């Protein structure tokens, strides 16, 4: 078997010069230290994205994006299509886990200061990818055309309508009219399966190319020791051992080849994630609910998906009027400004203690705020 694989590789190498293509992978290394586990989050998010793509394509075989047929087609997938329940369950659960992983990845990058020079653009492209993931979540949530999704989309697009100057135009653009109708469903379907994937592929390519080009960041505290130790291990192993014993340098500050060592570990994590997805899809199937009815009253206590809940809850808590301006509008402006600052965060990191402490503080505050508001959103009526 191995011989056959080697012969196939040689055959392709003779024609495509694979050695050149695989060289960066062979030379790519991953730092090994106490915080190395956080490196798996990016790959995990990527894996869950692949699950999304595969299951999404399979769902497309049966899904019909019209107001009259969408709900019934999802119901058909859940009940009549062999393993349809599994595909939809995997799609829904992996979407949520992907966004969770993306958030965790972003905060790990922030707290390990991996965004610092020269990786500012990697951070920016990562932020764009997170926003795109949220866009996938928002557009995909409507597609089953059930009651909750219908009213959540109505509320969500109403909020978009509050944006000054372009708000109303943007709302009409998203809805395909003044109200959430079948036109909105068709439009969201287009965003979900064509527009967003195309933009995502572009930014994902940029993000991965930047990582490949710049290598994986080492936390600043470990960086000098890593370099010295790597040099000594190569040229004077005895001195390296002495450094570990006498200077208290972490012995784990090493580097492992990306391929196969890190890749195999990542593969293990992916398999575990796949198992978890299977458990969730089989034991906690994603509910379909009741078909959307534009004339029915909105169900009580309507809430968006968990990843939007902290923003939604904040907007609910803001008073109707904040001085001369509308409370909701103030909230939207504040979130927009915070979003822009967040994307530009690396450009404020000046290698000075005060700026770094400020960014770390902002990160801790943002994380605590998101967690607390999400929890409050679930507890509050």
């Amino acid at each position, binding site marked *: 078997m191995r011989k056959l694989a080697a012969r196939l590789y040689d055959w392709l190498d003779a024609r495509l010069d694979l050695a050149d293509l695989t060289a960066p992978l062979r030379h790519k290394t991953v730092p*090994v230290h106490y915080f190395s586990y956080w490196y798996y989050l990016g790959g995990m998010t990527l894996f869950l994205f692949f699950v999304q793509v595969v299951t999404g394509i399979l769902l497309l075989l049966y899904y019909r994006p019209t107001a009259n047929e969408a709900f019934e087609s999802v*119901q058909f997938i*859940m*009940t009549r299509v062999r393993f349809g*329940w*599994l595909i939809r369950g995997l799609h829904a659960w992996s979407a949520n886990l992907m966004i969770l992983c993306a958030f965790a990845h972003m905060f790990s990058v922030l707290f390990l200061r991996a965004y610092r020079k020269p990786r500012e653009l990697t951070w920016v492209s990562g932020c764009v990818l997170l926003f795109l993931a949220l866009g996938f979540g928002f557009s995909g949530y409507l597609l089953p055309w059930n009651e909750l999704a219908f009213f959540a989309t109505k509320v969500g697009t109403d909020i978009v309508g509050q944006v000054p100057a372009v708000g109303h135009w943007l709302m009409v653009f998203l809805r395909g009219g003044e109200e959430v109708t079948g036109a909105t469903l068709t439009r969201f379907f287009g965003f979900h399966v064509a527009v967003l994937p195309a933009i995502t592929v572009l930014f994902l390519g940029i993000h991965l190319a930047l990582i490949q080009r710049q290598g994986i960041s080492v936390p600043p505290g470990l960086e000098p020791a890593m370099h010295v130790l*790597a040099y000594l*291990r*190569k040229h004077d192993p005895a001195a390296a051992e002495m450094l570990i014993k006498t200077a208290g340098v972490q012995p784990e500050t*090493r*580097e*492992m*080849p990306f391929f*196969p*060592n890190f890749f*195999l*570990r990542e*593969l*293990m994590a992916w*398999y*575990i994630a*796949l*198992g978890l997805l*299977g*458990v969730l899809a*089989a*034991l*906690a*199937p994603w*509910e*379909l609910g009741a078909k959307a009815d534009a004339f029915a009253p909105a169900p009580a206590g309507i809430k968006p998906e968990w990843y939007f809940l902290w923003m939604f809850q904040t907007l609910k808590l803001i008073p109707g009027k904040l001085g001369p301006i509308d409370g909701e509008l103030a909230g939207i402006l504040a979130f927009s400004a915070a979003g822009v600052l967040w994307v530009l965060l690396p450009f404020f990191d000046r290698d000075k203690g005060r700026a770094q402490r400020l960014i770390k503080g902002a990160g801790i505050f943002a994380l605590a705020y998101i967690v607390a508001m999400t929890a409050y959103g679930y507890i509050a009526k």
Partner: protein
Amino acid sequence: MVTLPSRSDRAVREGGAPQRPRFFCVVVFAALILLAAPAGVRAAEDEPAAPKDTCFDCHRHTLSDDASLGFRDDVHRARGLSCAACHGGDPTAEDMPVAMDPAKGFIGVPRRAQIPQLCARCHADGAFMRGYNPSLRTDQLAQYLTSVHGQRLRQGDTRVAVCTDCHSVHGIRPAASPASSVHPLNLPETCGRCHSDAVRMESYKIPTGQAADYRASVHFQTLERGDLAAPSCATCHGNHGAAPPGVASIERVCGTCHVFQEQLFDQSPHKAPWDALGFPSCLTCHGNHRIEPTGDHLIGTGEKSFCVTCHSEGEPGWVAAGKIHTALTGLDAALHRSGEILDRAERAGMEVADAEVVQAGAQEQLIKARVEIHTVTAARIEETVSAGNKLAAQAYQAGEAALAELAFRRKGLALSLIIIALVVLGLWLLIRELEARKPIA
């Protein structure tokens, strides 16, 4: 030409000037106003702006009597009518003798026998009522005169109910208002004030348990749950034309709401003999005021069955009753079984919406069969029940299939997890082997 209740009210509506107050009255009124100032401030906050009404002002702010207190929230006052609309007099006059001058139509407290005619001056005048509430009927007096109350009043019995006994005197609210004494939820109390009074009813030889019985009935329970379509006293007896429905009309009265039951009863073998025997149709089994929730135990050959009251063991009616009971309870049990298995599947996260539609269809058949018992024809009911049983069986099979699918998924999951665990273990061993051969630098 619109007939108005009094000259003074007409003057107010037509914008006529009030009479010029005399100096003495001004002084007296100033003193009264000063004395009543705190109450006046309070009253200004809770009273609507209304045309000048010296009767109300005096009674409310100086006397603080019950009449003015009630009239504060009266529907007539809210529509701009004054005390003088019923009592006559001049509400624009500041001087009490002038305001209450019989020459100005003042009648004081109307006599009970006068009240229906007094109210009817406006309420029977379609042209006048159009200016206030065009949808309100204007035949209340005509109906009242056909009622037992109205007929007795005509005969000189002034203890019977007149308009104010039911609608209250000064605090009259629209009938749709929950605060109204004639709102469906308040009717048992309003009617019961007289009809539950044993002393009052003694001379009429009328029983007094109707209100208490009605409160224990399924009709009142439904009403209390907020379903205002459920019948109150007036629904069956009429309101202004209140009279007990005679034996002949009971079926029609119940049939106003229970349309199918009435039609099916007309087709039943009970209809002709019961009519001949003078049985009060629906009441024979269900009673009148204390109508209890129905159930399958009320038909059949059991202790609580209505049927055993007339039918003896071995009679065709007894046999039919037994068959009907068996059919109904059989379908009910089948529905419980299918409902339970579908619930279980749904709780486990299975999609059983299609099966629930079938289950709902079976439930409809049971409802239909329960209505059809009014035909007391076992064959017809068994046919409906049979259709329901087929649907219930389909729903049960769908539930079983969903649970089987669930078990299959769990087994599949377990197998997948074993395979994944083996792959993860294999990868871990591979990494160990790789790193044993070439340690990480």
